[in-house]
């Protein structure tokens, strides 16, 4: 607790597959800039967590002075890492924002295949979730909207959409909610 930074700082956010290979990752920690270090971290993290079941509730593990919260959905694994003096529940909210917004954008079909097919969306989620280690947003609905640039088309803000557009967007939202 000696060096209390001004706010929670995230070390990395990872999305690995069921064999521990990286799908999409983002590191904010300047101590882990080289790919070799990153891959070593991912490997040992994968080995430490693979035996646990984080399918229902997100789980947590501590190692190497880090605290990691993680959740497995189908064949993809979500991880969020920070220093071990961090508040676990804040990390949990980041993790939740991460996998929930991916799930929203992929319309509930969270698996390696669809993640790869929509990798652009996943990368954008990472970009909207954490900015340089600072938590940017954790609400999955907000993140999903920002990723899909809702309201940005045709340079007209949401309020100035035509009636037909509004109906179309509402229909899409309803059908998405039904699908979920």
């Amino acid at each position, binding site marked *: *607790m000696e060096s*209390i930074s*001004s*706010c*929670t700082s995230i070390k990395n956010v990872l999305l690995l597959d069921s064999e521990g290979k*990286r799908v*999409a*990752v983002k590191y904010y920690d300047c101590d882990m800039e080289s*790919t070799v270090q*990153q*891959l070593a971290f991912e490997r040992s993290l994968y080995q430490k967590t693979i035996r*646990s*079941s984080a399918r229902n*509730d*997100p*789980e*947590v*593990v*501590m190692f190497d002075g880090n605290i990691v*919260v993680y959740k497995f959905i189908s064949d993809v694994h979500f991880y969020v890492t920070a220093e071990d003096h961090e*508040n*676990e*529940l*804040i*990390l*949990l*909210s980041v993790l939740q924002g991460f996998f929930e917004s991916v799930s929203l954008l992929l319309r509930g079909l969270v698996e390696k*295949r669809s993640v*790869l*097919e929509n*990798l*652009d969306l996943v*990368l*954008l989620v990472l*970009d909207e979730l954490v*900015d*340089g280690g*600072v*938590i*940017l*947003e*954790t*609400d999955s609905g907000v993140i999903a909207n*920002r*990723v*899909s*640039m809702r*309201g*940005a*088309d*045709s*340079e007209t*803000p949401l309020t100035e959409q035509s009636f037909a557009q509004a109906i179309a967007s509402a229909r899409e939202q309803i059908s998405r909610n039904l699908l979920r």
Partner: protein
Amino acid sequence: MVENSIILGSESVKKRDEDSDDVYYSPFWGIEKGAVLQEARCFNDSQLDARRCQQVITKLLYLCNQGDTFTKTEATEVFFSVTKLFQSKDSNLRRMVYLIIKEVCPSSDEVIIVTSSLMKDMNSKVDLYRSNAIRVLCSITDAGLLGQIERYLKQAVVDKNSVVSSAALVSGLHLLKINADIVRRWSNEIQEAINSSHPMVQFHALSLLHQIRQSDRLAVSKLVTQLTKSNIRSPLAQCSIIRYVSQVISQTVPSDNAPRPFFDFLEGCLRNKSEMVIFEAARAIINLKEVTSRELQPAVSVLQLFLSSSKPVLRFGAVRAINQIALKNPLSVTNCNLDMENLISDQNRSIATLAITTLLKTGNESSIERLMKQISVFVSDIQDEFKIVVVQAIQTLCLKFPHKHRTLVNFLSNILREEGGFAFKKAIVDSIFCIIKNIPDAKDPGLTHLSEFIEDCEFTYLSSQILHLLGSEGPQTTDPSKYIRYIYNRVVLENAAIRASAISALSKFGAECPLLRSRVLTLLYRCLHDSDDEVRDRATLYVQNLEKLSLHEVDNSNSHKVTDFALQDLESSLYSYISGCTVSPYSISNVRSASQKSKTEHGISKILSKAGHDSSFSEDVSSSFEQSNLLSNPLFSVYGSVFKVCSSNSRISPLNYFMFQSSKPISLTEAETEYKVNLSNIKFISTHVLSQVTCIVHLFQSHVVFEFKCTNTIEEQVLEDISVSMEMIEGVDFLAENSTISLDRMPLGDEGSTFVIFDRKEGVFEQAKFSCILRFTSKEIDPATGEPEEEGYDDEYTLEDVDLKLTDYLRPTNISNFKKAWDSLSEECECSSDYDIGKREGLQQAVEMVINIIGCQPCEGTEAVPPNSRSHSTLLSGVCIGESQVLIRTNFGLDELNNVTMKITARSERLDISELVHAIISNS
């Protein structure tokens, strides 16, 4: 068989299917950097295909993400073509463009190309364009460009849309590192943003404002006061406030009676509706400096609720926090024990391990058996790294409750036999070693367990360690013969390294147990023809030594020398022999034996100090032993072993032309230790320091030896024939001067010793004060020849008086069972009386003071006074010269005015020793 092969066949077909699925579906299968860079040319097409461009950008990002790097020219090329995409009106493509610009991170001379496009987006009507343009621009900008966009950023901070405001604030956090001054100018806007209705904006604004003011303590304190009263609802922001508050608390000096500032705020946060905030507040309370159990109480209750949460992360956080409390205030969390016992079977092994180690810290003596039963079920199915944590916790527990050593050592030896890696086995063996060293009763069972373990141990290192321990500890046990079988089995069955260790161990039995010597010799004869050189050499050496021993029947103290020497001494004496003249044969008689040395060194191990005891006593003694030249002088071996070494202070008074400087007594130890060694350095100063004298008192059974260590620090002078004459100026006649050993020459820059030896009447405990005069012959060195002059002149200086204190007769010892030892001493030799200590700040202070004065070892953790208690009893144990045990019970009481009274009851084998304790107290 047939069925099997069919199943196998179908499986492999299926597998291949899956593989081909993968190949078919993964859009990045066989991706190659060169090809993707080719594809990126489509960015330059006059008719942009937005969808295709998006795909190519994704591919580029995929490559980056997998660890591929672009060369400088490749990156520039990509960057330039990407800038063309600003022409497209497709918003999703634009979003990807923002992302890849950040990823490629152009060099500063290239940035200028996108600046205008990004500036245009910063002024766009679309919020998402604005926010993203801000983030991109701030992440690639340099200080110069910042001036141009500052106006926009300042405006963006107070934008009504949260996405824009957040983007500006977070960018501000990053920009602080580049140009703090610009960001500081936004203070008013940031202040306004704190009151935004959007939670994330609140959080970001708060973080930024705090970061700006971080270096100014007063400003932070003001900010915190303002924040604790404001109405901020965002959980993240509230967590931040809690952090700032605890930072401010840790910086304020606590006053005695005033309540801690902001504590009410923290306590209020425990009732927040967000778990995140509750938890942060609980952690903040736990980490308060010198937190009292009353302050901890509300935090512990919320953590206890979390323990039974359905969320693993919450359970983990709670048990981790409770574990942290248990380190310092185990009593405060005993209420949670029941909940934690349920967690032993938790799915998440980190939670289970934390729960167990916490229970081991908080558990009381009665619950140990039950706990061990639960742990033995659990321990078999966790990983080694968790097991090591458990083993270390058990070791600490065992030192805390020495009576339970049987259960705990049994448990350790059971898991020692289970499967496990080297690190795990080593942790167990180390723990058993530590327990054996500190709990005398555990020695026999511990050694038996270890010797059974080496019967089936796959690690050479551990076997050697254990054999060494058996060799050094085994001969002193009640039945040394039983270990010989175990050791000899190793000689028969193991590899060379272990055989060599086993032979060394055997020889120690032969040397120290005359009854077993002939049998050990028989065994050693069999090893004389071993196939390994080292084993053969050792066997031959030990056979020689033991045969010599049985011929001469030399007394026991010399037999130590046969087998072990203090390695550091041996090394240094060999080194000086080799570097000097090697004509005469090397003599080993100057090397002191290790057992003599180690007797004082192995007091209480570091682990104990973790458990709240203090190990510095043993360190002090061993360090003053290191400094002493006494043991290298064979003359003193006839006096038997040293009872205690005390440093005394001697100081040289000023005399004629010598200037005088003396340092104040330097406390070599921390202020809280039980035993203090004062050592003062005496320096003559003419123009430089001439010489330096320190006195060390060595107490023997029937002798007292004063050692004066002298160092000459001036090159132009030789001091010869140094001696000290001592005269008792205070005290009754119980010492008779025996002899003086003078120092031929005071070495330059190194220490030489002169001794004054007194015979002591046994059974008399008196204090005394001596005046000391240093006598020597001083010779000038002729600067021309470098040789000292023939004629010197005699000189003398008065040194500071030396004390022999009553406490010098007592030495702290650790005993495992105070009550049993107490009852075994008769009541007739009991002596008790009451003392009034006067006003103290608390009982802890009084206890520490009394321990300091008496200089005995506190037992069973009784030196720690529970916070806020009005009465306390501390148990002390020690040994008086003549090896008779002294046990002391002290009862302390505190009245309303903080006056402390105490009652001291001492028991020992003789009444006069019990009286000695009281004499010590009343003298101080």
